[in-house]
């Protein structure tokens, strides 16, 4: 249904918009507005580039005009001083800018948010100053004159009309690429990195690669636009590529709609023509231009495309009354009609735990209910004989210190394949730190960590996902701006391989792989009973279901070892029961080894074969749940006087 709608949109685009776009040069009254239109299209390529870095990557870069300038200068110098042809100039421009993309992208691995922005700003200013001051190469403030027009062999784009078609082709290609990128493995990985870098890394996304890729793509498009710009204007000088034009590009992106495919074009055309429309204000038109930027942001904070998208979504919803994927950029509106939302919200609670979930899980639940209880159902694992099972994960002398504070002190841990291991400890006693050490978010100060016989303590989180370690987070770290399904699909990153070219050309292999990703992601969602909520956003789900989505996401990485960090926190009793059944099912049916941190002793007792107790970063006890509960030092450190309150309640 949705696919059909998408098709018909695309047909509409081709039937109606394309002829209009082709006829545009004849519709424009003056040569000047055609020049403006050409400028707008070139700017929109720059802004489409910025969209990769900011819209999808969430990196607020102030270097876009510098990339654009580098592209323009490379192309201009190659076609003037070096007497090369335009295609060589264009190629040179994209190569050099992409290289600078890498150069700027790599330091971003260390810097975060505003520091990163500052580094891009410094880079932008440095480029402008270099263009201005290295006279021998760039002709300094004089700029470069007499740049030949764009030409591919006999095809010469020397008038604004002709140039327009070249421009149009480039813009359409860039938009097409944006659309395809967004729905690809790499696009999801980049958006996941934007939404939550740590969680992205922990689901196997190569965060480093994605961020550098975002910079390279943005630099690449800026390079193309720069080359076009030089050929179109035949004269370039350094001051065109200053901070102000970068900021204008950011404004164009925001006003059009960041993270959408059409937003960059819409915003660019709007802001390029706006000053002309304001000319009647004469002296004050630029001042009003400044104010209109503020006003547009105030009235369409998600950009024009976001605004139109939510209006259309609203209309569709009213006429069809069916849930669907929301328009780009729109997050606030709930897609569900009111009654529907209520009914669905009910799924997570006590009113209808049985009928609420998909058949898969309810069925399993019913089987569980009739099946003999655990005491005798998993006897082989209840007391694994030491050394009998090969250990999947083993830590020896694992230690980490922050400054002077030792958070985990020489922990020796051995978890057998197929085991469910519980870890309990008082708050702040190092269990989440231990989990972070296993999943690779922290590197140990000392000690070893082995997964299936291989050392992993030096590996990055994403490498460990490849080795089969997956995790969930204590404070739920889903990707808020991706749908539930895309959250899970993002986790297929480490098990798939589609690259940029395959994505752009939609090669058979890529399409096939994408189909497989979709199928497996839906399976993972069905396993936790949430297939019906695939197209919702995580924020629309009740708390308990969000935790289940995290588990589905972890399962999509095809793990051998699953780390659950307080999976039951904030769950109702019914949800906790369902969680216990689910974890048991994935342990038994899929053979996944589980390490679970939990405060709720009932879950620990009901689920775990073995329990490890930490206190102040050290292991103080280990054994079956019952042994641990009876251990005096555990009672002292952990269980406390809880029984007193219990007694009063009864």
């Amino acid at each position, binding site marked *: 249904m949705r696919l059909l709608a998408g098709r018909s949109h695309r047909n509409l685009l081709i039937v109606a918009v394309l002829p209009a776009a082709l006829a545009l040069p004849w519709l424009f009254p003056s040569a000047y507005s055609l020049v403006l239109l050409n400028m707008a299209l070139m700017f929109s390529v720059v802004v489409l580039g910025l969209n990769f870095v900011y819209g999808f990557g969430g990196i607020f870069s102030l270097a876009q005009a510098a990339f654009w300038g580098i592209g323009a200068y490379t192309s201009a110098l190659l076609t003037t001083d070096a007497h090369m042809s335009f295609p060589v100039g264009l190629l040179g421009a994209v190569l050099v800018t992409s290289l600078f993309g890498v150069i700027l992208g790599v330091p971003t691995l260390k810097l975060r948010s505003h520091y990163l922005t500052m580094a891009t700003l410094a880079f932008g200013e440095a480029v402008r100053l270099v263009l201005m001051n290295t006279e021998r190469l760039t002709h300094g403030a004089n700029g470069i004159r007499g740049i030949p027009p764009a030409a591919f062999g006999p095809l010469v784009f020397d008038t604004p009309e002709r140039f327009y078609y070249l421009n149009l082709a480039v813009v359409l290609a860039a938009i097409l690429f944006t659309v395809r990128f967004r729905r690809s493995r790499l696009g999801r990985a980049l958006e996941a990195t934007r939404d939550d870098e740590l969680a992205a890394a922990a689901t196997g996304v190569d965060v480093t690669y994605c961020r550098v890729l975002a910079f390279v793509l943005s630099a690449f498009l800026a390079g193309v636009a720069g080359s076009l710009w030089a050929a179109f204007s035949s004269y370039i000088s350094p001051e065109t590529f200053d901070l102000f034009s970068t900021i204008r590009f950011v404004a164009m992106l925001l006003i059009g709609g960041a993270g959408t495919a059409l937003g960059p074009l819409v915003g660019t055309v709007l802001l390029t023509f706006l000053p002309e429309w304001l000319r009647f204000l004469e002296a004050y038109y630029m001042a009003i231009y400044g104010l209109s930027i503020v006003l547009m942001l105030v009235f369409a904070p998600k950009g024009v495309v976001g605004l139109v998208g939510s209006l259309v979504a609203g209309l569709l919803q009213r006429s069809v009354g069916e849930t669907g994927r929301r328009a780009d950029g729109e997050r606030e509106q709930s897609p569900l009609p009111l009654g529907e939302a*209520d009914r669905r919200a009910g799924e997570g609670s006590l*009113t209808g735990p049985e009928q609420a979930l998909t058949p898969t899980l309810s069925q399993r639940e019913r089987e569980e209910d009739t099946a003999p209880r655990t005491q005798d159902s998993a006897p082989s694992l209840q007391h694994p004989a030491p050394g009998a099972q090969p250990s999947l994960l083993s830590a020896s002398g694992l230690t980490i210190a922050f400054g002077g504070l030792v958070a985990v002190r020489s922990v020796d841990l051995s978890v057998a394949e197929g085991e469910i291991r519980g870890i309990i400890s008082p*708050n702040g006693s190092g269990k989440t730190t231990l989990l972070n050490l296993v999943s690779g978010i922290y590197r140990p100060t000392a000690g070893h960590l082995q997964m299936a016989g291989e050392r992993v303590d030096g590996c990055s989180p994403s490498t460990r996902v490849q080795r089969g370690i997956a995790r969930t987070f204590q404070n739920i770290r889903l990707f808020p701006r991706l749908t539930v399904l895309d959250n899970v699909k993002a986790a297929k990153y480490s098990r798939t391989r589609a690259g940029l070219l395959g994505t752009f050309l939609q090669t058979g292999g890529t399409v096939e792989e994408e189909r497989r990703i979709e199928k497996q992601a839906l399976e993972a969602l069905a396993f936790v009973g949430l297939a019906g909520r695939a197209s919702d956003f995580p924020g629309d789900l009740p708390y308990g279901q969000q935790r289940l989505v995290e588990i589905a996401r972890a399962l999509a990485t095809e793990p051998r070892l699953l780390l659950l960090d307080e999976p039951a926190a904030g769950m109702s*009793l019914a949800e906790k029961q369902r969680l216990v059944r689910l974890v048991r099912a994935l342990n038994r049916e899929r053979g996944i080894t589980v390490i679970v941190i939990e405060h709720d002793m*009932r879950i620990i007792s009901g689920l775990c074969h073995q329990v490890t107790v930490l206190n102040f970063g050290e292991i103080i006890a280990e054994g079956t749940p019952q042994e641990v509960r009876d251990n005096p030092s555990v009672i002292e450190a952990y269980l406390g006087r809880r029984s007193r309150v219990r007694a009063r309640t009864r």
Partner: protein
Amino acid sequence: MLVLDKVSVSYGRVEALHGISLEVRKGEIVALIGANGAGKSTTLRAISGVLRPTSGQILFDDRNLTGMAPERVASAGIAHVPEGRRVFPGFTVGENLEFGGLALGRATREIRQEVEAILEMFPRLRERYKQYAWSLSGGEQQMLVIGRGLVARPQLLMLDEPSLGLAPTLVDQVYDVIEEIRARGTTILLVEQNASMALAVADRGYVLELGRVVLEGSVDDLANNEMVKHSYLGTGAEEFV
């Protein structure tokens, strides 16, 4: 003292509370229990003015609080201690405590006296008086935010999930403090997921489900109610096996 009459609240287009009515009498501890997403915190936010009710009335000592801004609700004598131990990290423990009375325009001397009384109650905070609040442990931070709420000398103290994320030993300490506060005569509205804890200290309770009050009564009635026993108290480990 506090009366909610058919209060409804919406987030955007989704209604989260559907006509909640409840009452807190002077000197009581009233517990709101329910699963996550049942509307407990939303109820507190509606009372303290962070959320504006779409319908219904909130009365406090016969004053109409409906739709009043949070800062004015605070001056009316209601202290809301939100969940998540929201200390001011860049203030010292002392500054945090004083702040409880500062925005209400209390005299400095009055605030000092109140802070002194709180320090009597929480000797641990006196030891940490000059430390920055970010350097405290989770349990200490919880004590600090409760103490800060008390410095305002509220007639009604609203506590949102004071035990969330604390180890059992610390939960015990927090509940000792709650009992002590009641002994001083402050009325308390307590939101908890940890139902057994809440019912252990409260006088009366309300059970919320999906934005509605589904059950109310004395704690003894609630603790012996089959539904509450089954859904919120659990009957021990065997429940999961």
